[in-house]
């Protein structure tokens, strides 16, 4: 919004070089510095209003509560953070959550891409059904997901697999609820890919594997990264399915969200907020990393 105000006050932009994406001689340094705030604003009055509404909404809904959490956490000062994180049980919960979320995200990237591929490129009996069912883990209330998994892998497991209340249960529950993310982000991109591009590569002598690596994958990376970010974010925040399945055993299967709840139940809001802000930081780092990766691949070609 500020850039719009600045724009209105300043003389009309006359620098033709601003439109050229590959410009950048040393001589153009000075004008560029003056508009450091970003690309030239193209806001009309209507668009400005739209942006205003969007920012306001985002602030009320997301930024303010996040700031509040950080503020509460800061009440305990730096020492508050340190003491919370030095608590072995909390640290174990953070490590378990982040590790498991990372493992599940990697699994999703691989399996999700394969599922998307199969759904788009192959035709087989029951494909339509599979396409619909993929969303079930996402659509199901997570507590129900926990129940479903408990009936299959719990103490009375018909399969004889008693994974409940072990770290494997965490992996299982997270993998279950995050399954659709990569599939659903990759699928539409794969559908849009034109097969003549692959044929062109083949007639130039590229093997199937080379075509996948050099032609198809670069087009999918942004979608995969987006799916991975969603999947990771969902995994570190999962609560419902884990409550039933993991048993919440300290140092073993207790995840961050359960830990936070415990703090709140004990009236220790500052510690809860401290842990929450740590997770906020982790989520930000991962999302930024995936974004950087995606941009780098897109640029490298």
């Amino acid at each position, binding site marked *: 919004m500020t850039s719009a105000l600045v724009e209105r006050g300043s003389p009309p932009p006359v620098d033709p070089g601003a439109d050229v994406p590959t410009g950048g001689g040393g001589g153009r340094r000075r004008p560029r510095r003056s508009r450091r705030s970003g690309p030239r604003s193209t806001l009309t009055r209507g668009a400005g209003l739209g942006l205003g509404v969007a920012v306001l909404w985002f602030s009320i809904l997301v930024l303010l509560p996040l700031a509040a959490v950080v503020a509460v956490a800061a009440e305990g000062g730096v020492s508050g953070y340190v003491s919370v994180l030095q608590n072995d049980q909390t640290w174990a919960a953070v490590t378990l959550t982040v590790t498991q979320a990372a493992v599940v995200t990697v699994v999703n990237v691989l399996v999700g891409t394969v599922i998307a591929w199969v759904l788009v490129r192959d035709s087989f009996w029951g494909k339509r059904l599979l396409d619909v069912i993929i969303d079930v883990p996402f659509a199901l209330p997570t507590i129900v997901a926990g129940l479903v998994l408990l009936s299959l892998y719990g103490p009375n497991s018909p399969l004889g697999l008693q994974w409940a209340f072990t770290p494997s249960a965490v992996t299982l529950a997270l993998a279950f609820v995050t399954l659709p993310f990569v599939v659903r982000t990759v699928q539409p991109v794969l559908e849009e890919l034109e097969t003549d*591009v692959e044929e062109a590569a*083949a*007639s130039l002598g590229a093997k199937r594997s080379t075509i996948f690596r050099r032609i198809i994958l670069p087009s999918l990376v942004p979608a995969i990264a987006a799916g991975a970010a969603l999947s990771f974010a969902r995994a570190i925040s999962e609560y419902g399915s884990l409550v039933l399945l993991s048993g919440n055993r300290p140092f073993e299967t207790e995840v961050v969200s359960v830990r936070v709840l415990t703090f709140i139940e004990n009236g220790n809001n500052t510690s809860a907020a401290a842990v929450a802000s740590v997770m906020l930081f982790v989520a930000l780092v991962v999302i930024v990393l995936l974004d950087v990766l995606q941009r780098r691949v897109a640029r490298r070609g």
Partner: protein
Amino acid sequence: MSIEVSGLTKRFGDFVALDDVNVSLPTGQLTALLGPSGGGKSTLLRIIAGLDTADAGTVTIEGTDATRLPPQKRNVGFVFQHYAVFKHMTVAKNVAFGLEIRKRPKAETARRVEELLELVHLSQFSHRLPAQLSGGQRQRMALARALAVEPTVLLLDEPFGALDAKVRKELRDWLRRLHDEVHVTTVFVTHDQEEALEVADEIVVINEGRVEQVGTPDQLYDEPANDFVMGFLGEVTTLEGQVLRPHDIEVATHPVPGGVQGRVERVLRIGFEVRVVVAVADRPDVTVVLTRTHSRSMHLEAGAAVWLTPAEGAISVASGRQREAASA
């Protein structure tokens, strides 16, 4: 012969795309596969490239039986109607792709890419992404990419089909000149007879999965094998069961020996040309094309009685197959 196709048959379900096609395409020439949409010409091209497989028949490229070879091993360059660019690669990277696959030394690849971009007049765009190019430039890039691997044959599937009329005409001339420089055996598919007549050394007319005629543009125009070929290469009209060109009919305003009597239905002037539609008894209307001067001198008007005869030396074929309606 560079490409020998024999007994090629291809079905898609009940639809017969190619029906026992036999054709030889000579080395070093520019050949057009010409025919209406859905006639099987693109399928033939794709089978030659190995992108589709035939149900029966063989394809031989420069003496090697290529029928069962995958596209990677055929050493053909293929250019697609919708460019098939590698969107995430720069123009130079696109062109270099085939050479990188072949693990050519970096310096050699760079030199060759530079040469090719020079050839297709895209040198100054080498660092751009395909999205920053116009349609015509993208297609020239696709051509350079296909030529980079020094293919035995260059196959182009409706290469100018997605471009607007002006660019299409430019690229057509440019392709002809390029071929005269590079001399690679080239086959291109088109449904535009003007494009084929203007650019190709030899034309293969394909319709409903069969080869109707093979010949030079002159042969096809002067000695059409049948009424389909005649009708596809230009406007035709039928007079007394003979298919001939509308400008090859003489009009008289008085009875002449052998003349077919008719009555002028409509007179339409298009620039220097006058099209006269003549109704004759028990037959479809006959279209005659005259020059403006000629028509004025005869005072042709709607309702006038006229007698029509084929002009001397007019090319005509018997109208047997009754297909001209579809191609007109």
